[in-house]
């Protein structure tokens, strides 16, 4: 089997106080730590397991600046065989444009995969679009929110998709296909720092984005960024433990649940 996994190197912003720069069109990412996108870790793990079970080769591909090499090395340390970094320092906000670049890469390199995996979404923009658009451009069957790959047999795969409210959907998809996987689909193996360093010896290509820029075009652009209005926070119940608990019971009584 041939499997390709898309991996994104993303900033970790949950706890950060963000600042806007470049005329309020971008966020200052200078001091923000980065990591391999959480969803993509699951995608890489899933790909590694599929290859372990069925044999074959796996690619990990990333689009970004040179630091994204760490994302590749994580993927290689986790069991994928080859890596490619499509290098660019541009901030590509339009997932359509990213998908076009990936399509060009796959076609120019002549990669005929059985499965292309991505994560459901990236932690930074949460667009949840690149994988699906890529499938559309390649005209390959697609499914996202994949929480289980049940069976892979001759030319087809059966997957479980996560729906709302605790429901799931089972679908059969013919290969080649593109799937976007959800967190929790597996338990990713830990790869040590030493392991990731050692992965630097594995085959990796560094390619300029210009090689794959034919026909690519950003169709949406950021007019500006702004901080959402601060929410009214909670009324903090003050006092010692006894007073606080007393207060809580008052609230419960008011709502008629005590």
């Amino acid at each position: 089997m041939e499997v390709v996994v898309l991996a994104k190197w993303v900033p970790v912003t949950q706890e950060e106080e963000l600042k806007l720069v470049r005329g309020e069109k971008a966020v200052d990412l200078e001091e923000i730590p980065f990591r391999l996108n959480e969803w993509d870790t699951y995608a890489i793990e899933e790909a590694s397991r599929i290859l372990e079970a069925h044999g074959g080769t796996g690619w990990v591909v990333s689009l970004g600046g040179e630091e994204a090499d760490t994302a590749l090395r994580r993927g290689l340390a986790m069991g994928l065989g080859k890596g490619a970094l499509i290098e660019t320092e541009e901030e590509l906000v339009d997932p359509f444009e990213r998908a076009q670049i990936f399509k060009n890469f796959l076609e120019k390199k002549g990669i005929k995969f059985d499965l292309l995996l991505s994560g459901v979404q990236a932690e930074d923009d949460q667009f949840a679009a690149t994988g699906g658009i890529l499938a559309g451009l390649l005209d390959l069957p697609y499914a996202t929110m994949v929480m289980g790959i049940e069976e892979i047999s001759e030319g087809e795969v059966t997957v479980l998709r996560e729906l709302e409210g605790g429901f799931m959907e089972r679908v059969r998809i013919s290969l080649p296909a593109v799937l976007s996987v959800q967190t929790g689909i597996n338990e990713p193996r830990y790869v040590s720092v030493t392991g990731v360093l050692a992965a630097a010896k594995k085959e990796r290509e560094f390619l300029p984005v210009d090689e794959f820029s034919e026909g690519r075009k950003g169709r949406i652009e950021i007019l500006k960024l702004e901080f959402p209005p601060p929410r009214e926070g909670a009324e903090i119940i003050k006092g010692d433990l006894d007073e606080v608990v007393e207060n809580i019971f008052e609230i419960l009584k008011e709502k008629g649940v005590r």
Partner: protein
Amino acid sequence: MGYALVVGETRGGVIEERSLDPVYFSDKIGLPSYLLLPQGKYDPLKGVCDKVLVSSFEEGDFLNPLNLVRTVEGVIGAFGAPSLILFPHSSFGMDAAPFLAGRLSWPLITDIAGFYRDEEGMVFVKPLYSEKVHAHFRLRDARGVVGTVRTGAFEGEGMRKETVFERLEAIEKDPRREFLGYLEEEVGDVDITRAELLVSVGRGVKEKENIPTFEELASLLGGTLSCSRPVADRGWLPKSRQVGTSGKTVKPKVYLAMGISGAFQHIAGMKNSEVIIAVNRDPSAPIFQYAHYGVIEDMHKVAQKMIERLKGQG
């Protein structure tokens, strides 16, 4: 005249309420809305949208992105190209919208949470970076756009319309993806969506051994125990107790969030609770932004004290 094609979603034949969010969005933009749905009867939709387009596909096949592309192409053939093709930002929307955008070669904006117009045209607002920043997007080509709309971002303006129902011509299925059926997660003992009071525990509960204390608290209060994702992921409580986008959405009278930090996906599952009381040791926990009342204290201490009082009262 332009229109917005809204692709709706049903589950077990019942229309999902979130399918109407894109309709409200079209109202805000000022475009007539054509709501596209699978086989079924949709009388309650009278007055809500301008057209209801009923596909020949059954629900399972309709929601299949590959078939949906063919369905949409059929609509375009019959009614002309819409200005926008909209989906709810749901599992289905995330499945179909990007794929459709790729097939049609239309730009895509997901999770649209706001909209306005400026001198140059339409501006779509989408949150980025864990909700910390709102991005205002503009289209470069003024043509069509595919979008998914955030649930609850737009409200109905109570407009009453003359709804026309149309049946669409039958289309052949795309054989490359097939719907095999629905499954439900293992049915838990209790349906948390029915509880009036929920005691919900998060990571702060720290260990499985601490769960019984909160079970006791919930029970003494006459409520039910629920949890956030990390607790369910670890198997300390069954998935049926999980509150959040990938678990259940709850609207109890009282939601007592203990040791829950307030990740967005969790908030989405409980923000419509009538009263949210958050107990957390960390004063900067995001949950305090959403709760009505906050207690900055160790959840274990609070639980112990509450149990003590409840038992003391016999």
